[in-house]
């Protein structure tokens, strides 16, 4: 808490806007993510969360406002987006300096538990394995900002639970700033330090998550879950 807020911010967006035609998707949005902070972003479909992530990734430009992001940021998408014609290790090593590429890819793969799959073709992997390779590809670059665009949405429930644990361990070790875009309120609470809800192109509310709320089944978890769902306009029977 002694560090100056300026130095601690990995992402700083001030009043950023984005419109497609006459439809405003981001509406003078402010967002700050600290170094090493895990922020989850939830919201209804079409609220602009993916647009925000794509702006932070530098894929799409913003129309107005100022946006500052770190030099090295990586994205894990909902689809693994592995090049099917390259073996697993080359997919991880893509774009790395040639000399150390293989060794760095191998150790990144070992970190996600796929050290023995370095020479496999991507089509031979299961959905969860492919997503772990995508995670290795993102982390091998030692990003200061890691953007996760619903990376677990296409996985089955059991694989998703295992992935949550893996992601938590990896992020504890690498300490990038993280923005996770998700539809899954439980996932947001379990992983994030701070859960943001988004509505009509703006951040509607911020909810810090403390330790006890991260235990599924605890009273704090249930309370936060109900609160977040209510904000998204969902009332459970």
């Amino acid at each position: 808490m002694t560090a100056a807020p300026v130095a601690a911010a990995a992402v700083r967006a001030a009043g950023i806007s984005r419109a497609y035609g006459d439809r405003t998707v981001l509406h003078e949005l402010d967002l700050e993510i600290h170094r090493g902070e895990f922020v989850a972003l939830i919201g209804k479909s079409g609220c602009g969360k993916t647009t925000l992530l794509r702006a932070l990734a530098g894929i799409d430009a913003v129309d107005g406002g100022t946006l500052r992001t770190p030099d090295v940021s990586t994205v894990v998408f909902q689809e693994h987006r592995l090049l099917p014609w390259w073996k697993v290790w080359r997919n991880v090593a893509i774009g790395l300096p040639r000399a150390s590429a293989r060794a760095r890819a191998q150790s990144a793969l070992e970190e996600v538990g796929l050290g023995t799959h370095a020479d496999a073709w991507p089509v031979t992997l299961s959905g969860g394995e492919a997503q772990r390779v995508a995670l290795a590809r993102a982390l091998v670059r030692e990003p200061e900002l890691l953007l996760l665009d619903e990376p677990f949405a296409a996985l089955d429930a059991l694989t998703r639970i295992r992935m949550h644990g893996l992601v938590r361990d990896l992020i504890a070790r690498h300490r990038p700033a993280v923005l996770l875009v998700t539809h899954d309120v439980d996932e947001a609470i379990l992983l994030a330090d701070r859960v943001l809800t988004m509505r009509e192109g703006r951040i509607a509310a911020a909810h810090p998550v403390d330790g006890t709320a991260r235990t599924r089944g605890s009273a704090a978890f249930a309370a936060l879950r109900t609160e977040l769902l209510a904000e998204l306009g969902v009332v459970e029977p």
Partner: protein
Amino acid sequence: MSAPVIAAEAPVVPPVATGRPAARRPRSTPYRAISWAVPVLLLVLWELLARAGAIATTVLPAPSTVLTTAWDLTRSGELPEHLLISLRRATAGLAIGATTGLVLGVVVGFSRLAEAFTDRTVQILRAIPFLAILPLVIVWFGVGEAGKVFLVALGTFFPLYLNTVLGIRQVDPKLLEMGRVIGLPKLQLVRAAILPGALPSILLGVRLSLTNAWLALVVAETVGAAAGIGFMATNAREFLQTDVIVLVIVLYALIGMITDLVARGLEHRLLAWHPNYVRR
């Protein structure tokens, strides 16, 4: 290339296979044997009917006669000479047509400006069945080599051009986006994502080009030539040598089969990653 994968997975596979109840696959039908037995039986039937005199020699000679003819013509050096001339024409035409098609296809695939300059014109020319310009080719080049090579080149150009452009344009935009997020330079993006992604389509173009090459050669050699296996057939027609005609037809089929085999081998090698070829 895929050997390590197989080696790594080999110890895992057998227990799974033996674990299955044997009843799931009763006695396997010998599909492969049947598929070969049918053409062999037809050949035998043909031979017997020809020998018994049920088919006149002038209509269709026995397979054994065709084989004897092939042997005689090979020993006299006539067949190898004509075959070599035909192969040389096909190779030269293919080299010119396929190279032009591939290069132009890559340029148009990458550049909208090049597309604007070239593509419409090529599409208009493509509407002409390339064999329809045969009379014009004879007027232009006479019965010399150039005309035949030109016709083969024309026939091989279009499939390769079209499939190269299509392949490049159909590369998954999500992969390109991933490449940009990682910060790949443009040239590396082409090498890593675009060309390999276009390769299946390009190889399909190669196969279609090979088919067209033989088609062009048959027509060009049958209509106006003084050498080549097409000429052999035309010449044999004058003397009702059906055995030579059938021999030439068989040769065309064999060459077609061999080139297709080569093209498929190429696909197997270059597309080892593809779901159709990868060995899990």
